[in-house]
């Protein structure tokens, strides 16, 4: 099982769209995939039309009084399941803090389902918190959407530094450009010139596109309602490149 967390300190960069669309592509290619909606906003639950409700709240899962398999919901798509969000996730940091070895809890919770899924996508809320650190401990890779602007690249560098400083040697940082608007000169410059500190960013990128925004109307992954669109193809290419990159 590979655990991939869609993560960025910044909000509104396309983390949920990434988790949902990559999970869909991976599932269509035959992998058994699980998305865990860790954001109390519940956006990926919304896209999959699954009620953002966990019986007993997220606390019950962390305390392992509820089996993870008992809260998993099948999506409308073959091979693709979801652990929905819950409003209790807003307090997850407190729940984790009350546990011994708080940052190791998420990994332990996922262990029983390791044989059931090939990929688990963790759709993470923005910011750096105890939950984020738990995600860093559990994940094999951080799939990080980055808008091609100076400030976003600066934030990426901060994340890189955090990983290095905390000796998270097994965690692979896999950034890619997201919401790329080729009408914007700065986006084009960054995309084409790729300053030295960007060299590790994937070549595949996701365009800023209205069809991605339409996901909220369609409540489905983009591959479901707009299979031959540029954006859908972009996610296919992105997933292929991520697979080649993963250690």
């Amino acid at each position, binding site marked *: 099982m590979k655990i991939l967390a869609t993560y960025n300190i910044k909000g509104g960069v396309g983390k949920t769209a990434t988790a949902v669309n990559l999970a869909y592509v991976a599932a269509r290619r*035959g992998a*058994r995939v699980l998305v865990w909606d860790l954001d109390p906003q519940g956006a990926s639950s919304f896209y999959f*039309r*699954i009620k953002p409700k966990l019986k007993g709240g997220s606390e019950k899962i962390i305390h392992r009084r509820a089996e993870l398999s008992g809260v998993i*919901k*099948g999506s409308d798509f*073959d*091979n693709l*399941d979801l652990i929905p969000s819950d409003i209790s996730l807003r307090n997850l940091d407190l729940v984790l803090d009350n546990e011994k070895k708080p940052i190791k809890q998420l990994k332990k919770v996922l262990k029983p389902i390791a044989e059931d899924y090939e990929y688990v996508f963790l759709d993470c809320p923005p910011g750096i918190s105890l939950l984020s650190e738990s995600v860093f401990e559990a994940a094999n890779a951080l799939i990080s959407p980055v808008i091609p602007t100076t400030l976003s690249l600066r934030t990426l560098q901060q994340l890189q530094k955090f990983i290095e400083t905390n000796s998270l040697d097994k965690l692979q940082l896999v950034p890619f450009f997201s919401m790329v608007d080729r009408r914007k000169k700065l986006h084009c410059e960054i995309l084409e010139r790729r300053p030295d500190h960007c060299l590790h960013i994937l070549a595949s990128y996701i365009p800023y596109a209205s069809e991605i925004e339409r996901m909220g109307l369609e409540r489905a992954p983009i591959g479901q309602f707009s299979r031959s669109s540029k954006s859908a193809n972009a996610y296919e290419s992105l997933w292929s490149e991520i697979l080649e990159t993963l250690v």
Partner: protein
Amino acid sequence: MKILHFEIPKKFDEFNLIVDLKKLLLRVRQSEEQYTCTFYDSYDWRLYAKNLTLEALTDGSGLRLSLRDFSSAGEEVILNIASMPYFVWDFPNGALRTKLQPILNVRRLLAQTELRCRRVVLNQLNKDEKTVLRVEIDENVINLPDGKEKRLGLYLNVIEITGYPKPYKKVLEFLRETLQLKPRKRKLLVQVLAAHDRQPLDYSSKPDVQLEPQMRCDAAVKLILRHLNATMLANQNGVLGNVDSEFLHDFRVSIRRIRSVLTQLKKVFPKDGLRPFVADFGWLGKITSPARDLDVYLLSFDQYKAALPISIRDDLEPMRTYLQQRHDKVHEQLSHDLCSKHYQSLIERWQYFLESPLAEQPAEKDATMPIYAIANRRIWSLYQKIIRDGERIDNRSPAQRLHDLRKTGKKLRYMVEIFRSLFANKQYKEAITILKNLQDNLGVFQDYEMQVHTIKAFSQDMMAEKGTPVKALLAMGVLVQVLEKYSHQARLQFADRFSEFESKKHMKLCKDLFYDQ
């Protein structure tokens, strides 16, 4: 994902059934699909033997592969793909490939049968328009060999969506209690094949011949030979088409078994009548050897690479190209030989021999003896020969002695397998396991020895050819050293394996089974 299947009796009308279900499910999205469903399995039904069926559904745009496991509540693994992969290594990495790999190994998936399906889908929706249950009503149609169509009737599939057990239970309750329907035990594949007068597992490479102990020996031997001949011919087209390497393997094993019967039981038929066939099948064994050897080298190639240090693994690739080129040429020659007049004549004469009636008063003394007596005599004699020859082998013995022991072991194994129906089940299994352990060790030793010799010959050939990189030859040299080491390890294990074979316990078991007082 749980799935249950129901066969709908003729008294039910599709339209009314859909109306009733929609009343029960309330919020429903109905759609219709039309597709062709092809059932795939290996020639020897490896998937079916493990309670699996593989369906490829297409509506003209891509394929949906569905592997169903009937031993675990109908669990299903699904893959959407552009075109059909026929070998495991053509599948993308994922759950389906992982499940198929240990079962199929090198066997090609073949289309066993197909049907056309018109499917009405009822997706029960919740208020978010999320599917919480899926019900499918299938009307299946097959094309018969005479060109006519046959309708197989209506089938209903109920698919539980993970995390939504209540709708699933509600529908099952309705089907069981209101409509009095029971889940179908027979797999759809079985029903489709039955409509073509076929059944699954209609081919097996194992010599499954039912013999009565008191049967006349010549009658029993002809029965065995007809069975082995049928197996050989069943694989012929697969060999000619080079479909997968197991066709040639099974073809050759049948040939060896036939030769073994002809030489081990030679006092059953007139010697002059049998002699040409012994030579003929010897010829068949010889002409099929080069192709089989190259199949094995190509199949082992990834293991060869894995045995080398990482830094030089890719240097071996020119050897793969060389093997592939030789393989293509050799298979072409084999196809030519199997289409030759010599081969056709062999098959015709052999068929004539097999179909000709038994002599009423044969001159050969073993012909009218009961088969169990002759079988026991031969098998016990071979066991004793293995013990005698094996005891003479020590660490200093030349390799040829182990190769000869292996040949005797093969003759014994074929005899034991062919006459299997004459022996008690549990003891037979124990005896064959110990024999197999010895044979495996001898096989590993001989195979590595031969590979060392042959790879050296390949490297000489490749050196004579222009363009072979030096590092490829160096990598082959390292490979030869590795294989020599493996061969030596197998040689060291021989003593233990033989000691198990010649143990008092094993010998008592074999005597009880095969020694006819």
